[in-house]
Structure formats: structure tokens, C-alpha cells
């Protein structure tokens, strides 16, 4: 436990020096603002381009439901550019330590592999969750200002669902970073797999049940329809199961000294 705190602290200091604690939240704030603004102004801009009779804001636009716009922030911004940036910012999470020998070095100390992995995942998840949350909140404020209000409880429920999916993204990328040695390959595999998961959501109920990306869909559903899908909790549990499995794989991989040292 003690060692875990030391490793966790080191990760945070590193993120602070890398300015990751500043730029990652800003990126998500940016993405969060983009969706409501684009939705709000795009039709009038398009209209101006086509008709040329000047840009006016269509009053019917404000009638669009706020929940749909906030859902689109998750689905079109965070689930696309947002998560790619997240994955790329984490591709070296364990690979860098492997490449420069720090992983082997740290493990010559009386440190358990579990506390090492936990330090990595917890720190990276906290910063990712913080960024997503703050970007989402800003988006929420914009949506409430430009469109119809979204109820606070729906907003929070959707956020919690979405954060489960973020935890899966962080854990999965960490696993890929442990197994592979090239950052390009790590980013490619993680992005392709996770986007694949996100795309197949809705194809079949069986796949949806085991697919962690369904958490993103459940979050969007809460915002759009205002009701919680009963499958959401099951899906969250399945996702947690995947995450535990991923932790086992990472632990096995490192503890069995399969890691490439030179």
C-alpha cells in the first residue's frame, strides 16, 4: 500500500511536469464546447452559404432537446477525437518504462507488480476521468444555455456510465502497452479495437451485453430518453469483469518476466 502511494505520487508529479494535468482537461473542455456550438450555429451558417440572405439564427433550433446535444458530445466528440487523444496520450504508459529499463529497475525493489500496475492505472484513470468530467460539465453548461435544460440527475447518471467505459479504455490501453513494444503499434491496436467495440454497439443484444462500449450508449440513452436501461447495470458489471481480467493479464505478463528487457 505504501509503495502504491509512492508510485502514484510519482505518476502525478510526472503528469504535472508534462503539463498533462492542464492540457488534457483543456482538450476535453474544447471538445465539450464544440458540440453545442456547432449544433447551434451550423444550420444558420449552411443556410447563409446556400441562400446568401445573411446569417440569422433559426429560432426553431433552440427547441432541439438539450439531452440530445449532450449525448452527441459523448457520442461524436468524446467517443471519436476525445478517446483517440486519450489513447495516444497513454500509449507509452508502460512501454516507456519497459524501453528504458525503469520497469525492471523498479521491480528490483521490494515492490509488488500489483502496486506498480495500480499506480499506473489509477493515476491515468483519475486524470482521464477528470478531463472527461470537466469537458462534459462545460458542455452541460453550454447545452443548458443554448438548448433546453437537461436534468441534473440524468447528467450525473450518464456521466457515471460513461466513466465506466473510460476505465475500460484506460485499462485496455495499459494492457496493450504492456504487451507490445512499439508506440505506433500500441496506439493502432488500441484505437482500432476500441473503435471497433464502439461501432458494433447496437448490432446484436448478445454482443452489446459483453461489449464495454455499450456503456457509452447507455449514457447517451439516459440523456436522450431520460430513462435508465435495465441492461446498463449488467453491462457495467461485465465491464468490471473485463477490467479485472485485463489486470490479471498485465500482472501475469510482468510477473512472469516476459517483458522484453533489452
Amino acid at each position: 500500500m505504501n509503495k502504491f502511494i509512492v508510485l502514484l505520487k510519482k505518476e502525478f508529479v510526472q503528469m504535472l511536469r508534462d503539463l498533462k494535468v492542464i492540457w488534457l482537461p483543456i482538450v476535453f473542455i474544447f471538445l465539450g464546447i464544440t458540440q453545442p456550438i456547432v449544433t447551434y450555429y451550423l444550420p444558420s451558417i449552411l443556410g447563409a452559404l446556400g441562400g446568401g440572405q445573411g446569417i440569422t439564427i433559426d429560432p426553431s433550433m433552440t427547441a432541439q432537446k438539450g439531452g440530445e446535444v449532450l449525448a452527441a458530445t459523448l457520442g461524436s466528440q468524446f467517443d471519436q477525437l476525445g478517446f483517440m487523444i486519450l489513447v495516444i496520450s497513454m500509449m507509452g504508459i508502460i512501454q516507456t518504462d519497459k524501453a528504458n529499463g525503469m520497469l525492471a529497475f523498479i521491480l528490483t525493489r521490494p515492490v509488488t507488480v500489483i502496486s506498480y500496475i495500480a499506480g499506473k492505472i489509477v493515476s491515468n484513470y483519475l486524470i482521464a476521468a477528470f478531463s472527461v468530467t470537466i469537458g462534459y460539465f462545460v458542455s452541460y453548461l453550454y447545452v443548458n444555455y443554448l438548448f433546453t435544460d437537461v436534468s441534473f440527475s440524468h447528467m450525473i447518471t450518464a456521466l457515471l456510465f460513461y466513466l465506466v467505459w473510460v476505465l475500460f479504455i484506460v485499462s485496455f490501453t495499459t494492457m496493450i502497452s504492456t504487451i507490445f513494444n512499439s508506440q505506433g503499434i500500441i496506439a493502432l491496436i488500441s484505437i482500432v479495437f476500441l473503435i471497433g467495440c464502439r461501432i458494433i454497439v447496437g448490432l446484436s443484444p448478445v454482443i452489446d451485453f459483453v461489449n464495454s462500449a455499450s456503456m457509452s450508449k447507455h449514457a447517451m440513452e439516459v440523456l436522450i430518453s431520460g430513462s435508465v436501461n435495465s441492461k446498463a447495470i449488467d453491462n457495467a458489471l461485465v465491464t468490471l469483469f473485463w477490467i479485472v481480467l485485463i489486470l490479471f493479464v498485465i500482472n501475469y505478463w510482468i510477473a512472469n518476466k516476459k517483458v522484453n528487457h533489452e
Partner: protein
Amino acid sequence: MKLEIKNVTKTFREKIAVNNFSMKLKPGECVGLIGPNGAGKSTLIKVIADIIDPQAGEVLLNGKKISKMKREIGYLPQYPNFFHWMTAKETLTFMGQLSGLQKKELTISIPEILTKVGLKGEENSKVGTFSGGMKQRLGIAQALLHKPSLIIMDEPVSALDPIGRREVLNLIEEIKKDTTILLSTHILGDAEEICERFVIIKNGTKIEDTTITELLNRNSKNKIYVEITAKDQEWIDVVKKLPFVEEIEVIGHKVKIIVENIDKNKNVILENALEHEVDIVKFEIHNDTLEEIFLKLVVGNE
């Protein structure tokens, strides 16, 4: 503490890196692990430092598995690499805390250790700006910080320039007093300077485990070198006929004489030379240098 390496074997795919290697280190001993590049030294060191698991065999420290005794090990990798964004002090605090030291102890011991390794005044410099020698010294500092009873060093001086090498060797000389040290090197001179005991490894197998004096004695082949002038060449034929002379080799004016028993025979040869009024330029008892012995062991024995 006592270190035992028992029948360690490690293979990478088809290649055998370490083959059934065993040795014991007594507490306080300093042992040099010597071998040519690619002999399996680094692999063996990594097995001992518990970085890689061997296929067979085990490493015991005071009778307990090494993975349970990590608190007692100080490890210096071949190319110590630290987080470049940390300062020297932060690095030592981080490594020290990982070894279970408290912050309070560290505030006292870190300045001490930095002075010892000659990095005083650099505690707040970023490791990224350090030269190879400074990194090596920081590496030694982190290996010593938690006062381990066994220090394992992989090629501690090979990558350094002569000045850095000197500094690090002096440092090891000093820490040798209180700890068991195992270091690997491919440069014999380094090991000769610090360690009494050598273990020579080749193709993953231990081919020699001895002390310097023993190695020298065993390999001094009862040789006498006599350098004479051109006019006394016929004396060589006289020497050849002496009963105790086993072999004679002439290189220019130098005569290499191998005898049965150097202590008994050397004076007889000298007397004989004087009798024949040989003009002696040089008369010496010749021992192979460590370098020669090492080469013979490593290159020979194929």
C-alpha cells in the same frame, strides 16, 4: 549475507545464455564475474537481481529466495537510466521510498550519500542533464542508499571514460569494506583492482573460480627467460642437454626455458651460464600476466 546460486540455467529461445551455473559468495566477499562480451554475464546478473526468472535453478540469499529478499539487494544496471525529469534528490527519494525507507531517514541519508558519490551540489539538477559518469554515480548512490547487504553491479565502469572509471573504482573500493559485492566486467584490469576472487564465465558456463594469487601460481609455468648476446648462441645447445630442462624456445636473443622445478633449477642454469662465460643481458623468472591467463582460459578450452 551469504549468496548462493544453485544450478541456474537460462535459455532464450534456442540460445543458452547461462548453463547450469553455481557459485557461493561468503558475507563481505567481493567477487568479479568476468567473461567476454556475450558470455552470459548480464543474463546471470539479471537472474541474481531477480529481473528475469531462470528456467532451472535458484538464487538464495541467506537461505531465502532472492525474490523475498529484495530489501537487501542494491542493483546497478549496466546503463542506469532514471526518469530524466526528476532531480538527483527526487530520484533517490523515489528509489529509497520504494525500498521502504521513511522520508525522515531520507532527508539525512540522501545528502550523505550524494557527498559520498561526489554529486554534492547537484541534488537539484535534472537527471536528464547528467553525463554518463554522473548517472553511474547516481546509480551507485541509489544502490547503496538503503544499506543493502548485497550489491550487484553490471559492468559498473565499462562505459566510462578514464576519469569517470577511476572515480567509480575508488568508490567501489570504499564500499567494499561493508558489503558483499558481485560485479561483472569484461575488462580484467578492473576486476583485478577491486576483487580478490574471480569467476570466469564463457558461453554461459563457469570455467574458473579462483583468487588472483592462486590463478597466477597455477599458471606460472616454471619458465625462465634469459636474454643473451649473439656470440653465446652455442650455449643454448648446452642448456638443451641439461636433464631437468623440458622445453626450450628461442626468439631472437631471448631464450625461454621451461624447467621441472623452478626453485631448484633456476640457480643451476644461472651457474651453468656463468661457467660458460655467457654474457647475460637479462635473467628472469617469468609468470604469465593475468591478461595472458585470461585469454588462454577464454580463447582456449574450446
